[in-house]
């Protein structure tokens, strides 16, 4: 076991939590991420193996699906992002590659992203100041890429109108956190 101490994307040793009124923003560092892209000509095999891995079909465009160990969301044609618990899946790319083998290209993405959970009954009031997602139709298990204050982010709906997970570029975690907390104070 190595002896290097990690820091969170916001630079702390513990995740940051901010609450404004009834909405809470939580930094979530314990997420392992890997991208999966089907090899050309092996799309069907890749989908099949992903189904085995997830325990359910790989999500359609604009959607996410949660299995036993992994959650997946659609990133692009024949491309998905898989997430899992960091403690048990730190080397997620190697674990996934073993399962998908030559049907897919797998790339570690864990620290390419900073992860925030935004929860509470009025998150839509916050989100509408941040990104152009159609919140009237953003249902549970929908997932989309969007731009938050010029940052390309993924937003996944864990529970419609109640809880979303936001993945943003790690190096800009501070700017993203500032944008979200500012929108929280402005909207709530």
């Amino acid at each position, binding site marked *: 076991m190595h002896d290097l101490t990690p820091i969170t994307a916001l630079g702390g040793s513990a995740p940051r939590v901010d609450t404004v009124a009834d909405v809470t923003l939580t930094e979530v560092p314990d997420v392992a991420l890997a991208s999966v892209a089907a090899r050309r000509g092996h799309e069907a095999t890749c989908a099949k193996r992903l189904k085995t891995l997830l325990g359910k079909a790989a999500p359609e465009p604009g959607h996410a699906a949660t299995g036993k160990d992994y959650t997946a969301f659609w*990133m*692009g*044609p024949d491309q998905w992002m898989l997430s899992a618990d960091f403690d048990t899946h730190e080397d997620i790319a190697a674990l996934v590659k073993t399962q998908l083998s030559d049907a897919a290209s797998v790339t570690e993405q864990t620290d390419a992203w900073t992860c925030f959970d935004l929860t509470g009954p009025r998150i839509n009031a916050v989100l509408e100041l941040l990104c*152009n997602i159609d919140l009237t139709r953003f249902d549970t298990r929908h997932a989309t890429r969007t*731009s938050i204050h010029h940052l390309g982010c993924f937003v996944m709906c864990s529970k419609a109108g109640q809880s979303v997970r936001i993945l943003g570029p790690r190096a800009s975690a501070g700017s993203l956190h500032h944008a979200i907390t500012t929108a929280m104070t402005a909207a709530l």
Partner: protein
Amino acid sequence: MIINHPLLGPRDSAEFVYLGAADLMKRPDPETASADDWHDYAYLRDNPAGVHRELWFHEGGDRSILIVTRDTTTHEISSVELAREVASK
């Protein structure tokens, strides 16, 4: 503008990067093309007042490049295709 993405439905054009005319996909064959062919490909573009086929890269989305057929005088979009599928045909 709203671009009706073949996979993701209507998306704001602000999510896209404009890459230019779809003619860019017709790269000359390096085995047979003449110098003029290369010159045309690299430098000459139509600038129609009317229907134009053009490439839009969904940088703020799924990273697909789309071929958007748009009337430059009205911004009416008559067709949107995935460039890779068209190129692969």
